[in-house]
């Protein structure tokens, strides 16, 4: 029996996580991390409801419940980082940053200081002796978001859901009478969601309209309301009608221009190799050689060759975007990875 602090978000995954740890005989404390509380235009931040949901489950389980207030740190380490990345034209992943800076650093440190021996979260992943392993449910595997966590942190972490599928988790939550069993999953970044990113960024960044230019012909096809809102490979939301669909194939932040093409084979959409920056290996630095890589969450694992800080794909990969993460695997072991640097 260990003293375990569980990050409880008010969702079904972390609710069941807490329940399973209680059943396993641990001394469990539920913790709601208060990271973001502000409403956004047209979007109500559900933090108070989520907090109440998490607490309801804790009460149901008969465990202690605490609130850790990380609002200032979250804004600084996650939100500001994300905004800065977008400003420079890159496509950051705030979930990865949140795991690196908040959940598996600040939360872990605060919990340990408070007397915890381990922390646990509802991530779909497995960990053994400081190794990060893919979840049983490959479809739900979240190791992509966890590749910047340290070995030391993993040694203090439990992922009780790693062996279950999402439907199983919902079923088990229902069997246990957890009030969050049927609660909808949050999407994308916890507080914004994919659709809200434009509105969110507009709060912090002043953008200028600019031209959308056809890469093949050089024609101006339309106007965009800020190049930062566009990401490589994007098809929708361009508001340029007619004929074949256009894809974003590049942008120039200085000129505030977005380049599009109907050519699915446009060379900028397909990359054979990338350079990695801010590389983080969870355990020992892997030797150069053949591995599998994922360039975005739920993208298929593809073969690659690691050569120093260069990654050579066996087959060219579509829409690999600066700022996003390339995460390497050796079988089911997540090794770590790095950010795709300017291409």
């Amino acid at each position, binding site marked *: 029996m260990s003293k375990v602090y569980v990050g409880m978000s008010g969702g079904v995954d972390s609710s069941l996580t807490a329940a399973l740890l209680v059943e396993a005989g641990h001394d469990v404390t539920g913790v709601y991390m208060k990271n973001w509380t502000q409403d956004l235009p047209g979007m109500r931040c559900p933090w108070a409801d989520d907090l*109440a949901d998490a607490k309801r489950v804790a009460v*149901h389980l008969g465990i202690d419940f605490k609130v850790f207030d990380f609002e200032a740190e979250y804004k600084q380490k996650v939100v500001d980082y994300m905004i800065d990345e977008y400003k420079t034209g890159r496509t950051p992943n705030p979930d990865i940053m949140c795991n690196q800076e908040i959940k598996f650093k600040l939360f872990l440190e605060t919990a340990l200081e408070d007397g915890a021996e381990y922390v646990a979260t509802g991530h779909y992943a497995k960990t053994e002796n400081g190794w990060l392993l893919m979840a049983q449910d490959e479809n739900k595997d979240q190791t992509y978001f966890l590749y910047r966590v340290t070995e030391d942190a993993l040694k203090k972490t439990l992922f009780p859901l790693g062996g279950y599928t999402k439907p199983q988790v919902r079923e088990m939550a229902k069997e246990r009478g957890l009030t969050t069993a049927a609660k909808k999953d949050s999407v994308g970044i916890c507080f914004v969601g994919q659709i809200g990113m434009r509105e969110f960024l507009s709060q912090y960044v002043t953008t200028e309209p600019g031209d959308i230019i056809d890469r093949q012909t050089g024609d101006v096809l339309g106007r965009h309301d800020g190049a930062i809102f566009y990401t490589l490979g994007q098809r929708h939301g361009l508001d340029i009608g007619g004929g074949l669909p256009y894809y974003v194939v590049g942008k120039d932040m200085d000129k505030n221009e977005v380049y599009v093409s109907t050519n699915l084979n446009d060379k900028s959409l397909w990359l054979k190799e990338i350079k990695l920056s801010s590389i983080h290996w969870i355990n020992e630095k892997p030797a150069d050689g053949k591995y599998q890589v994922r360039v975005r969450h739920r993208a298929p694992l593809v073969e690659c060759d690691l050569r120093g800080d260069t990654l050579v794909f066996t087959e060219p990969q579509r829409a690999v975007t600066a700022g996003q993460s390339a995460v390497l695997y050796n079988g089911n072991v997540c090794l770590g990875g790095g950010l795709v640097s300017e291409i």
Partner: protein
Amino acid sequence: MTDQLFYLDHAAATPVDERVLAVMTPYFSDRFYNPSSPYAPAIQVRRDYEEAKSRLATTFGAKGDDIIITAGATESINLAFVSTSGHIVTSAIEHDAVLAAAKLHDHTLVAPTEKGIVRPEAVAAAITPKTGLVSVQLANNEIGTIQPIRDIAAIVKQERKHRLDSDNHDPILLHCDASQGFGQIDVNVARLGVDMLTLNSGKMYGPKQVGLLWVRPGVQLAPMIVGGGQERGLRSGTENVAGVIGFARAAELAHEHQKSESARLHELRDFMQGELSNAFKQLVVSGHPKKHLPGSLHVSIPGLDAERIVFALEVRGVLLATGSACAANKGTRSHVLTAIGMSDAEADGSLRITLGRLSDKASVEQATAIIIEEITRELKRTGHA
């Protein structure tokens, strides 16, 4: 969730009485007409509406012509405050609607006593020659204390006289938010001596989003909502006929049964207080021991996390509030409990129990037993017992 519900939160909302609903329904269908239309069936609806307003006003000793129908107490309060120029005196334990409206003006908040009573002398001390409005609630929504409105009215009258004597012609009015308490205690504008009174249908077994502001004849108000000139031009918009028909019936029923209901609730509440005090030696009962609404009971156990009790109880069908429902949602402490000088530990360990028509002897006994069980369980879990 269990099948049986024990609803102990009548200060938050009351169910629409079936007798109220019955008189409302025709006005959604057969009698749907716009009261301003010229043909006979519409004119009948207008008569019904005016007659309902008149019956409604009678329940608190007023005339139908002197009430303005609004979409609830919050709007009534806003309307009462918006015409005020000058300084406002109100208490620190008013509902958020009053506090927010007061904040738009130069204002002074009068601190209550530790028992939650707004002393007339304290109100007198806060009044300045520039004060245009004094607003004090009839009864507190959290701790249930009944305020000495009549005595505060005497203070305001005295100030008015004093102003006349000193050739100051600035008006000073007294508004009373009587959202809580109607049907439990006497509410009569003449006996209270107020100039404006707010009532809320949704707290007296009538429909929600209907309220009224009674204004003493001669008091000049300015509208917030302009348009077709309904409600004497003070609140435009097609009349909420069904709502007012229901409000009137609800008020009549509440008024008619006030004495017996008051006695009944008093007994149930005292039973509960006795049981809880016996079960928990450390229990603190807040508010005034005598001057409280018959159905209101506010208790605290220092060190208890009351929100946990609310969540544990909801599973067992017992629905009640922590110190203040609104405050709990915002994750902040209740301004009422802060104002009466309650410590954080006590405030966090506070439960608000408000009994009403859904409470009978058997259900209150059962609910009390369940509450004691859950609090005991929690105190054991945390090593407090």
